[in-house]
């Protein structure tokens, strides 16, 4: 029996677990992979949004970030995450070997992923958290009043079923990356989004779902070495690529070139200082080249774009209050599973703001869930399971191939032609294709054990693609990461968030500020 159940194993899950345990709760974490190596933080290197507690400095940083948010940000949330990050990130020191800041102190705000997630795992264990690795959740369970009181899933090792009951549940399952090959994102299939919507929650900002990272075509890596790259076609002619700072234009230029043929990167212009220290900063990036016998700074190499979906986008489960509640009794969301529009608006939070968000929303949700759980515990209350697609088919069981569904949904979100030149017409066509795929898996999908986990992941990928496509179709303007070539202007009348949800029938609607106050 647990007070707080956390689903997920990345940085938001870890910070939620630590905060809930510090608040006196008995905490269980269930992760699809392993807390410490799962997710995009473990292979990455998050810098955290980091501003000292000086009112002038914080005010300027928040004003800059709020301008980037393109009308959808919330400065009060920005102030909270700056403060929580400043206060709590240094507390990992007993578990993390902070390096020098070059001035006699410690460099705190940027941390290397494998060491950071190892530290957070050790921190959580030191706080008494129970961690169940390789325990993917399949669905939430609720009591007769609809209050979420736990989850059910499969233990991958022996394919046994598990159920955990808890006074409160936190979804920290990460963003949806649509199996793009992005390193660390294989398990980020948007499972939490699907579980939340099945429980009655709503999503927000799913149209802000387009971002990519450039990598060698054989493996997704960190992008540090490539930001100054020159690009060439197969005949050795240099391509005219708008630089990274132009955002969508940069990716459009790369995407157009990649649709025309292979694209090669040349790092001859990379900062000279990088040659000596890349190995000491990102050993894994060096390995991707060294192990192929490629000199990264001398040899040209083929590149492609790896989709980052809602991970570097901002959409996710909508939060209805300042404690990360989802609107469903007993259910909280944190990190990339939740909408980050509050702190990043329509633009990518990048690594820094999203990392500060993951830490802060994790801690907020963890503390709030602990407080709620300590006051009400489900005990042996009768429970019913909330999952549908891939668990309880509405018609006869038939063969459904998860790989084919995932590939189509991934293409709908990330294929260059669809994603870089979005139009209402293309999105409408995609919506119909994805609806048919959803109907098939909901009607006929069923499996057992690890196969069920994969089929359920496919259902989540298709569901998330449907929400992304519908939200992109229904925001007929260009704002932040969402670029419509048939509506290239930003429409002041649409400076509001857009909600989405639904299973058999997907819906979207604008979030009117007046309704927000009433809720």
């Amino acid at each position: 029996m647990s007070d707080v159940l956390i689903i997920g194993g990345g940085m938001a899950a870890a910070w939620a677990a630590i905060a809930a345990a510090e608040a006196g709760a008995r905490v269980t974490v269930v992760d699809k992979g392993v807390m410490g190596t799962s997710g995009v933080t473990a292979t990455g290197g998050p810098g955290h949004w980091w501003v000292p507690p000086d009112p002038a400095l914080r005010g300027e940083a928040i004003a800059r970030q709020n301008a980037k948010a393109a009308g959808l940000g919330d400065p009060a949330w920005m102030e909270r995450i700056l403060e929580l990050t400043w206060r709590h990130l240094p507390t990992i020191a007993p578990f993390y070997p902070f390096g020098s800041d070059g001035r006699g102190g410690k460099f705190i705000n940027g941390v290397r992923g494998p060491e950071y997630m190892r530290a957070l795992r050790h921190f959580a264990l030191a706080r008494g958290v129970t961690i169940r690795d390789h325990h993917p959740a399949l669905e939430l369970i609720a009591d007769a009043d609809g209050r979420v009181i736990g989850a059910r899933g499969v233990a991958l090792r022996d394919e046994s079923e598990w159920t955990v009951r808890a006074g409160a549940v936190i979804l920290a399952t990460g963003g949806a990356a649509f199996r793009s090959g992005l390193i660390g994102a294989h398990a980020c299939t948007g499972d939490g989004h699907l579980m939340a919507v099945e429980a009655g929650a709503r999503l927000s900002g799913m149209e802000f779902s387009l971002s990519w990272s450039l990598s060698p075509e054989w493996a997704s890596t960190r992008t540090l070495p490539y930001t100054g790259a020159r690009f060439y076609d197969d005949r050795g002619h240099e391509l005219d690529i708008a630089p990274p700072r132009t955002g969508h234009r940069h990716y459009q230029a790369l995407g157009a070139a990649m649709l025309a043929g292979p694209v090669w990167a040349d790092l001859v212009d990379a900062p000279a200082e990088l040659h000596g220290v890349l190995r000491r900063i990102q050993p894994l990036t060096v390995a991707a080249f060294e192990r192929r016998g490629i000199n990264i700074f001398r040899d040209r190499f083929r590149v492609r774009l790896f989709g980052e979906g809602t991970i570097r986008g901002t959409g996710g489960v909508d939060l209805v209050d300042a404690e990360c509640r989802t609107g469903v009794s007993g259910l909280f969301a944190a990190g990339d599973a939740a909408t980050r529009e509050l702190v990043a608006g329509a633009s990518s939070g990048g690594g820094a703001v999203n990392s500060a968000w993951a830490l802060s929303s994790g801690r907020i949700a963890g503390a709030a869930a602990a407080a709620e759980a300590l006051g009400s515990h489900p005990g042996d209350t009768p429970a019913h399971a909330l999952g549908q697609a891939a668990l309880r088919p509405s018609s006869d069981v038939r063969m459904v191939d998860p790989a084919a569904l995932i590939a189509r949904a991934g293409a709908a979100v990330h294929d260059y032609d669809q994603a870089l030149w979005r139009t209402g017409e293309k999105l409408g066509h995609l919506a119909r294709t994805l609806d048919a795929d959803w109907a098939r898996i909901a009607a006929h999908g069923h499996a057992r054990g690890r196969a069920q986990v994969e089929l359920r992941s496919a259902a989540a990928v298709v569901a998330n693609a449907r929400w992304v496509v519908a939200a992109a179709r229904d925001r007929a303007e260009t704002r932040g990461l969402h670029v419509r070539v048939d509506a290239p202007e930003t429409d002041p009348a649409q400076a509001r968030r857009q909600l989405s949800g639904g299973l058999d029938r997907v819906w979207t609607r604008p979030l009117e500020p007046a309704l927000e106050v009433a809720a």
Partner: protein
Amino acid sequence: MIAHWIAERCTNCGDCVKACPALVFDQAPDRPVIARVEACQTCYLCELACSADALYVAPEMDSAQAPPVADLIAAGLVGRIRHDSGWNDPFDAGQLDDYRLLGPLLNQGVEIATARYEARVSPAPETHPQSVATA
């Protein structure tokens, strides 16, 4: 993808089995077994977990092809990232002392690309005009 498990180095500690987020390994009584190589995501984190340096991950996400172990050891590639990372070093070993340079160097690259592009789209008068159309 994970390419080699090196029998003569392995201590059968089980750390790779526990660390892999994709459940690539099974634990047999006397050794870890690469049971689901197709699930490998090429994240290298099993290599970090292996303090015996008994694993080698090939760099391609969709291929487990790699040279023979002896060649890799001779080239210094087995266990290289664990040592580069200072993964098992004490916290005061300075293994992250250059990490602060990540952001500044990344931004330098961005600036270099921006300056180069601006020079190209508004060339100095003496240079030949160039097409700015994207391919």
